[in-house]
């Protein structure tokens, strides 16, 4: 069941232009599956009138906590980044449909670009609990764009590309040598649209199952306003309600 709740910021870690926010609810959390997101209210400014959609980065059921990994790109996300421990944030959650979890024994690749790595963390943790050990392939423009690499490495093998070569292999995620060396049964992707399209092309060419998470501009986040549509093989679908995770077979790209 979806709910609106005031969460308290109980922890904050800064990573350059990104920030990790740990938020606690008084009440037990609703059931949250990897790939779902929250809509955060950013108060006190006419230019942050609508809520901001942010992926759920991690969930700690016992402590009623969720984490968000936010990249500060505009006024709303900068406001979130400036929040202090003890501040309250109003969230609507959990929204959208999550990723389809793999079955034991499947070889799984999680591809993240930029801040798109955010939902992959909770996804990987959930898989690991089911006995599936994922491989991460994370890409950024430069080393500083890749945050929490240690945390990712603690769950699964973590491969990295940077466009300037400052960390891992030089180039885009689609140019990494892993594509030549290994095969996967399931590929999960989140990142900039062009990167997701390129990975989807590789998956399609090799006939591999692939799910991507879209980041369209949203107003309601509930499937009510029809602002966030993607033109799919089934017609215009709301990313907030039918997605944000889509199997690439459903997409036109």
């Amino acid at each position: 069941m979806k709910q609106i709740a005031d969460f308290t910021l109980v922890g904050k870690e800064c990573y350059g232009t990104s920030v990790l926010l740990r938020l606690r609810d008084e009440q037990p959390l609703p059931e949250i599956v990897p790939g779902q997101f929250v809509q955060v209210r950013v108060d006190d400014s006419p230019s942050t009138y609508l809520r901001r959609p942010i992926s759920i980065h991690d969930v700690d059921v016992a402590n009623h906590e969720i984490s968000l990994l936010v990249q500060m790109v505009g006024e709303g996300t900068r406001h979130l980044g400036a929040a202090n421990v003890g501040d309250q944030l109003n969230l609507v959650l959990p929204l959208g449909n999550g990723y389809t979890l793999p079955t034991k024994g499947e070889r799984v690749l999680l591809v993240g670009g930029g801040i798109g790595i955010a939902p992959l963390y909770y996804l990987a943790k959930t898989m690991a609990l089911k006995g599936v050990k994922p491989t991460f392939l994370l890409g950024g423009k430069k080393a500083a764009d890749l945050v929490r690499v240690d945390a990712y490495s603690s769950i699964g093998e973590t491969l990295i590309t940077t466009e300037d070569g400052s960390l891992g292999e030089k180039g885009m995620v689609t140019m990494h040598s892993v594509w030549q060396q290994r095969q996967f049964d399931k590929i999960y992707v989140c990142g900039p649209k062009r990167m997701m399209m390129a990975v989807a092309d590789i998956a399609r060419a090799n006939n591999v199952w692939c799910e991507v998470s879209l980041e369209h501009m949203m107003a309601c986040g509930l499937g009510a306003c029809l602002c966030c549509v993607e033109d799919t093989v089934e017609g215009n679908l709301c990313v907030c309600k039918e997605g944000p995770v889509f199997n690439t077979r459903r997409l036109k790209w």
Partner: protein
Amino acid sequence: MTIDLGRGLVLRNPVMTASGTFGYGEEYTDFVDLAQLGGIIVKGTTLNPRQGNPYPRMAETPSGMLNCVGLQNKGVPYFINTIYPRIKDFDTNVLLNLSGSTLEDYVRGAEMINTLDKIPAIELNVSCPNVKQGGMAFGVTCAGITQVVSEVRKVYHKHLMVKLSPNVTNIAEIALAAEAAGADSVSLINTLMGMAIDAERRQPKLSMVTGGLSGACVKPVALRMVWQVAKAVKIPVVGLGGISNATDAVEFMLAGASAIEIGTANFIDPAISAKVADGMRDYCERHGFQKVSELIGALEG
């Protein structure tokens, strides 16, 4: 808190949710007990299915937003067969917002909706471009509105609410034309035409370049128009445009509205509609009004 809008449309309180902002009500049942609302007005529906406009369909603006959704919907027959059975037993008034691009579409759609027992009213959206008249909306000329309202009136026998476009020079004249053509009530305002540009990319932010402005920023314009229309017509006026809390809702009632609708504010707080109904009740108690209907047009001075 009851409001009687006439011809069988009785609201338990003055609060309804605006078309296109509340889905079919189902999207909000985790947040709002629909029995706390006077009514819900479901998504704009046209006789035939419409794909709507391409993405991006939304741009945020200071205290508001622009949209160019373009009436994406699956058509009246799909509504009747698939959606109506799911929502007809909601414990509130379910109104259908009907749109069309030809006169025939409006009339045919209204005829079909007339057969649905649990839909007590149509909100006729006359802001959609009329393809036969070169894209001009029915709702922006007195002749256009007279034509569409009188033709729909002939086939639709329940409460007919006509939703007015604010993109006109004299909204009171348009409202009078709707009244004379047989409307039971008018609701206003629909969105104001606007535009947003991304200066960095030198591109429009919306796929259709222009779109409809809504949200808190339109409230002063909406309030003025409701006041002008309420003075002009005898039928009830339903006020909307930027209502974000109970005080806003009370202001519309004081300006002459008999009921109100909440639109964009549902996106900011999905539970706002029920909160506004509660807040209006508190206001009445605090100011010694026995009935909420006493607020209608009670503007002093």
